[in-house]
């Protein structure tokens, strides 16, 4: 590690230049924008919400709000998991597939083997964590970039799912109150989602683990030199992302009741990463916001449901999603540049 550090140090020698600290009245607004990246996306979310409420009397109604909440749920939870990986400068492309795969695990345990439903759910979430551990080990111990490692895992899980189900649709097992809690009741999905997002927010911002994840992504070599177990931190983040994706997958499948092996889960995964990015999480590691990711999911949901209600084809949603991601990334880069300029100016 020291060897790496010393040679790294030699290479960095030229690139470091002294910088001042930005101040000034005019800089305050920009400063708050830089520090609170969520602020901009909150405004966008509120504006969209207001627009659709005004454009259609159907938007702000119980059934549509429930639809909205059911769109937001999975995207927000998988997105929060992805934030942890993006913070570590990694990514999990298999999270969406874990999301659709774990209900199958519940099905085969419960309907197939007669395992009690609650136990089947717990085991399935644990299997999710295990998938994450494998992703993490392939990335850290075998040094395969996470993009490739999790891409492989995506197809692997998809293949297993197709073989095990014989590519036929199945019915999610249910059991009274338990199933109501796990997605059967219309609002349960968003409650699970809010709970997971709240826990992950605290984990990232208020605990030693979250701080170590930021350190790992912010300066891998430096964190390791300081004694942070960077590989272990990454593996935990992979496990966390997969476990919560599996959990919300089970909730989502219980609500829908149909298990469709034709769904690879990539749509959910891309929405989730989009939500994280639109919410202000950079892909460079070292920074990320769980709350931003949640609001990003809200924006996507409002767009998706809102456009459908005002009668614009769902295809337009895809177009707008593309524009939104591009706009968010351009804003991210520009804001970073702006803060650099502020520093250089003094």
């Amino acid at each position: 590690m020291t060897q790496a550090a010393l040679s790294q140090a030699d290479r960095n020698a030229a690139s470091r230049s002294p910088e001042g600290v930005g101040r000034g009245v005019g800089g305050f607004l920009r400063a708050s924008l830089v520090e609170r990246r969520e602020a901009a996306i909150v405004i966008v979310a509120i504006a969209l919400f207001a627009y659709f409420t005004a454009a259609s009397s159907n938007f702000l109604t119980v059934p549509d709000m429930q639809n909205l909440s059911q769109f937001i749920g999975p995207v927000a939870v998988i997105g929060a998991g992805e934030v942890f990986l993006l913070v570590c400068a990694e990514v999990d492309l298999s999270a969406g597939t874990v999301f659709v795969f774990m209900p199958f695990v519940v099905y085969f345990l419960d309907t197939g083997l007669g395992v009690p439903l609650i136990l089947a759910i717990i085991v399935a979430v644990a299997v999710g964590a295990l998938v994450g551990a494998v992703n993490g080990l392939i990335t850290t111990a075998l040094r395969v970039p996470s993009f490739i490692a999790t891409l492989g895992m995506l197809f692997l899980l998809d293949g297993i799912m197709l073989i095990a189900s014989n590519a036929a649709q199945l019915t999610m097992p249910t059991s009274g109150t338990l199933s109501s809690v796990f997605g059967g009741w219309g609002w349960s999905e968003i409650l699970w989602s809010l709970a997971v997002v709240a826990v992950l927010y605290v984990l990232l911002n208020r605990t030693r683990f979250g701080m170590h994840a930021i350190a790992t992504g912010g300066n891998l070599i430096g964190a390791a030199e300081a004694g942070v177990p960077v590989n272990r931190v990454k593996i935990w983040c992979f496990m966390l992302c997969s476990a919560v994706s599996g959990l919300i997958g089970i909730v989502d499948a219980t609500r829908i009741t149909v298990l469709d092996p034709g769904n690879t889960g990539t749509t959910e995964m891309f929405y989730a990463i989009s939500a994280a990015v639109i919410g202000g999480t950079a892909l460079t590691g070292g920074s990320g916001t769980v709350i931003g990711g949640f609001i990003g999911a809200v924006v996507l949901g409002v767009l998706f449901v809102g456009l459908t209600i005002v009668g614009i084809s769902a295809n337009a949603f895809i177009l707008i999603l593309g524009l939104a991601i591009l706009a968010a990334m351009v804003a991210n880069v520009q804001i970073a540049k702006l803060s650099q300029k502020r520093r250089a100016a003094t």
Partner: protein
Amino acid sequence: MSAEALVGSTDDAAGRDDILRVEGIAKRFGSVVALRGVDMHLGRGEVLGLVGDNGAGKTTLVKILCGYQRPDSGRMYIDGERVELHSVGDARAKGIETVYQDLALVPQLPVYKNLFLKREIVAGGRLGFLSDRKMRALARQYLADIKVNVPSVDAPVDRLSGGQRQAIAVARATRSEVKILLLDEPLSAMGAKESALIIDLVRDLARSRGVSIVVIDHNYAHVFELCDRINVIHQGRVSFDRQVAETSLEELTDYMVSEYRQQVSSGRAER
């Protein structure tokens, strides 16, 4: 026994109360001899500059001192006691801290979290909830103690100047029980004002806190500003050992040039 009294004393007088002493340190990598018997000592509260061109063995010596590599032969004493360092953690446990040139800071984390990285103050046992208020207060207190000025302990490190970052890295290394501090090019890529800040910090740590410091640097002028004594590592040995007060930049430069001339066949040159 007065630690401060020895600062700036002559070589012979420093002998008995050295915090660190190495004898006959040798290291070879295959057929390449990196170190061929280094004898070196470091007084309490002394700032020692290690200079030498690339390939002279400077880097290897530092890696041995910080526990990253083990020498093939030779002895090392801390506080007069024979020690063998098996790892960086081992060296750390014996009070040797290293500040690498990349500083090992996390740019996105605030100053106080960088100061406490891996030594966080937490509540809630295994859950590890950060005690931000305590860490902030202690960080403020400690930075004031060693006279390091930052806009705020809440400022992310990437908002700080190069000098302030260096100061934070040094502060982190010295916050715990540190006897020997190894600094790798602490003044690189820094303006005059910034350099003055770090020079003051290093001198102050040595003088009033009794930290013994080894500075590794390519830049002779930096070493003259920072150090009490200078050792030149040349072809795997300490070939020049003078108090800064007893030598000059001219003498050192002349010495290095004559060493180069003798070494022309090897074709090595300063970058």
